[in-house]
């Protein structure tokens, strides 16, 4: 074997030479990165396909994705917020590394349920996987943990993300029907820990292992207390209640510790499903962490929680949006 043989073999591999000069120069002049033609075609096709699927789902009534928006105030008018509702399911596929870690925590649960303790540890453990975007507030794109969970913990998820500058409010609401396994609260805590790591003066907060953030508001929805960090548990406070003017639903607002009724070491299965909204917001460097439980669950009796509202029909996505909007109006815009 000699070089000539190799040279000849390479020489046979002659492609036809398309004139790429115009294409390249045009791209350079516009200073925009155009994808090669066939990728652009592919991208367009995918977009059309997705749009068609979305339309189909919308028509058939199965669409879980809805967009709502709140009118932003004019500059200088005060605080405002813009929301987009995302369907969380399958947003991002977890990397093998994360899945590997996740399996360790799955191992602590029975069948498909997460336990409270596991949920919180899990949240703490995965805090590094949540992105904190300085401008947008919180990016939850990496948070596909629930979508990947065996039980698809959030089955009717609505992820609501706010955008705004540093003076605006940032927050995340996970709403829909999901277990009270603690995984969603763990998620919140993990984000909060992440934030406290990143932002001053919140970095001074020492988040204990089973720590919770507590929100205190009065009947008018005004904040009356700062963050309260607890190292204990069973701190359950029915803070206030609100009535939605739109549909008469009553939402009872309890502190996030409601979801942490179990000591980590108790590690007890929490088998029921309830409709709830977990939410947290950041306002003036204070994190508000909330758990809204809606009185629609069954077989749920607790010494710490009493629902006085009549049992309404199961909530729909629209109900969640209305309720969420209501919460936003009550807590944020004012």
């Amino acid at each position, binding site marked *: *074997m*000699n*070089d*000539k*043989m*190799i*040279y*000849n*073999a*390479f*020489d*046979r*591999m*002659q*492609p*036809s*030479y*398309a*004139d*790429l*000069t115009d*294409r*390249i*120069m045009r*791209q*350079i*002049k516009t200073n925009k*990165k155009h994808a*090669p033609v*066939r*990728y652009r075609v592919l991208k367009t096709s995918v977009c059309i396909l997705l749009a068609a699927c979305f339309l189909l789902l919308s028509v058939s009534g199965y669409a879980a994705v809805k967009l709502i928006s709140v009118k932003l105030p004019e500059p200088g008018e005060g605080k405002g917020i813009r929301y987009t509702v995302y369907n969380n399911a399958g947003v991002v596929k977890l990397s093998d590394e994360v899945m590997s870690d996740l399996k360790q925590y799955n191992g602590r649960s029975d069948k498909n349920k997460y336990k409270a303790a596991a949920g919180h540890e899990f949240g703490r453990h995965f805090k590094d996987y949540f992105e904190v975007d300085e401008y947008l507030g919180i990016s939850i794109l990496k948070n596909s943990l629930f979508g990947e969970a065996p039980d698809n913990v959030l089955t009717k998820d609505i992820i609501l993300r706010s955008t705004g500058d540093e003076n605006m409010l940032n927050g995340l609401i996970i709403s829909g029907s999901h277990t009270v396994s603690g995984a969603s609260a763990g998620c919140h805590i993990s984000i909060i820990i992440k934030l406290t790591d990143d932002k001053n003066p919140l970095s001074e907060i020492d988040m204990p292992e089973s720590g919770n953030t507590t929100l205190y508001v009065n009947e008018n929805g005004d904040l009356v207390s700062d963050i309260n960090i607890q190292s204990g548990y069973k701190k359950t406070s029915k803070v206030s209640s609100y009535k939605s003017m739109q549909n008469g639903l009553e939402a009872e607002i309890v502190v996030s510790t409601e979801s942490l009724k179990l000591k980590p070491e108790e590690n007890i299965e929490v088998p029921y499903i309830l409709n709830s909204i977990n939410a947290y917001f950041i306002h003036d460097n204070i994190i508000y962490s909330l758990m809204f439980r809606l009185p629609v669950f069954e077989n749920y009796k607790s010494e710490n929680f009493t629902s006085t509202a009549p049992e309404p029909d199961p909530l729909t996505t629209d109900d969640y949006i209305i309720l969420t909007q209501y919460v936003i109006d009550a807590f944020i815009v004012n």
Partner: protein
Amino acid sequence: MFDTAKFMTGDESEFAVIVSELTPVFMHYSYSILGCQADAEDAVQNTFIKAWRKKHTLRDETAFMTFLYRIAFSCSIDIVRARKWFRAPEPEPQINVNDVSDIMEQVLLELSPADRSVIYCRVVGEYSYASLAAIHGRTEAWVRKRYQLTRKKMAKRLCELGYKQKTAIESGVPQ
């Protein structure tokens, strides 16, 4: 002939000349690595665009071709990686065992893209090991060793494909 100095100062018309003149060169190179016309076009397009954007990093006019080869190699490898996910495996080529170039082409196609690039740059481009190192982002010792190992691998594969028995004498190519 193009003027590299003008390119380095950001002369677009000169760059157009360069693109026009060197497209065949890099099409051949990328095609040799990728074995696909469309992929090679994408790689070449990306190569020139990256070269334009990174022209400020080129400090030595004489290293211009190495600079371009290095980008072309990187763009081609990116495409190789991407298509692992998006493309079905291609069918086995039909080779004529009586044709030495056919066998050699098959042997080349069996190499990894990086090895193929090393062989190409050394044999077709006649680059020094120092330039090969710059193109592939490796040390000179690494590319030297790689080149030698690849040649051995190719020779072995040629034998396996029956080159010695069936084609060497007919083609008159010394072994």
